[in-house]
């Protein structure tokens, strides 16, 4: 293909591509905004609670046992 033709085609791609990117992201902005209005407000979780799920009951059991052993050893 001639370079002129390629240049024209790449300019077209620039237009199409940026167009697609903007259209899709704009659509997403709209949808996200709509969803955030529709979705019932969550009670924002209290900070101390948020920390809890990272510690599984197994972990706590293990740590509890470890503390036990630690105390016994001394």
């Amino acid at each position: 293909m001639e370079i002129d033709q390629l240049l024209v085609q790449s300019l077209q791609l620039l237009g199409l591509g940026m167009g697609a990117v903007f259209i899709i992201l704009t659509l997403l902005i709209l949808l996200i905004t709509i969803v955030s209005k529709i979705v019932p407000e969550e009670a924002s979780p209290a900070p101390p609670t948020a920390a809890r799920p990272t510690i599984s009951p197994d972990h706590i059991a293990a740590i509890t046992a470890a503390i036990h052993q630690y105390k016994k050893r001394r």
Partner: protein
Amino acid sequence: MEQGLLQLWASTGLYNFTIGQIGMIVVGGVLIYLAISRGFEPLLLIPIGFGGILANIPVAEIAGPDGLLGILYSAGIESGIFPLLIFMGVGAMTDFGPMLSRPSLMILGAAAQFGIFFTLFGAIAMNVVPGIEFSMADAAAIAIIGGADGPTAIYVGSRLAPDLLGAIAVAAYSYMALVPIIQPPIMKALTTEKERQTRMTQLRHVGKLEKILFPLLLLLVTILLLPSATPLVGMLCFGNLLKECGVVERLSSTAQNELINIVTIFLGLSVGSKLAADKFLSAETLGILLLGMVAFSIGTAAGVIMGKIMHRVTGGAVNPLIGAAGVSAVPMAARVANKVGLQANPQNFLLMHAMGPNVAGVIGSAVAAGVLLAIVS
């Protein structure tokens, strides 16, 4: 005995080396050096660099069709599986919360993709240089470096221009590592001190349900408008759904840890296998490195300029610096925005505000990849 000695000598590297192979082994070593001592994206550049060394060993044919790297390449890169699995892991690691809390900032992640398409034009224009011959597919594969997103670049590169894949991947990850050096001068040149001092209000809390719905919405929009982007976007959404849905913790954990680690090792080595001397040591690689730099710079500039526009439109509610994070290069570009912001105003914490455009940039470049794959291939 003598014959055996000769056979052994004829099988040594010393006897069989070509100058190009030596050069590429040095290149591999340099990548490893940069990764270790400069912290250049070590997770990828160490495997890529090492793969590059292995691929250029004479006689051993490790990158040949029956060698380890050759087999990994055809199983994982040619098929597209590795970058897609990486994208799934990225999805499982990404918190879209900051983006969802202020969706309008996504427009910054769109603007920064201008770097991709401008570079496409530049790559075609570069054909006037003698010794460089980029087809439209080559140009598109090079342009995607501007997406500042590794797996996207590798996915598009492997589909459109496998011969250039080594150089494209090296350029993409190198420039991602260089973001703290490339971006600040551009950001400062395009903004005033006062703009950079702009403080942004705290982000609203995003609920669990919104986070679960987002990957499904994103997939839906992509399906409707740009199916050619759905392999990439789909795996990103799948990984993110695993993370956010809260009921498949063990799958999410595996996707973002062991699985992505395994695939990263394989992907890096495979991509390195494309650092063959005859393909890499050419004028075209120089062109790719140059175009990659252009792509990052233009993308950054476009993001910042869109940031300035939003700054005006919103009456100063948006700090234009976060526009630079729109190129993606997660999370490096967001950190850079934060750092430059702090220089202007030590109370100015932009990190979470920049994360929105930052992850939007990942989506933006996946969309751009979809356009390129739909039209060019």
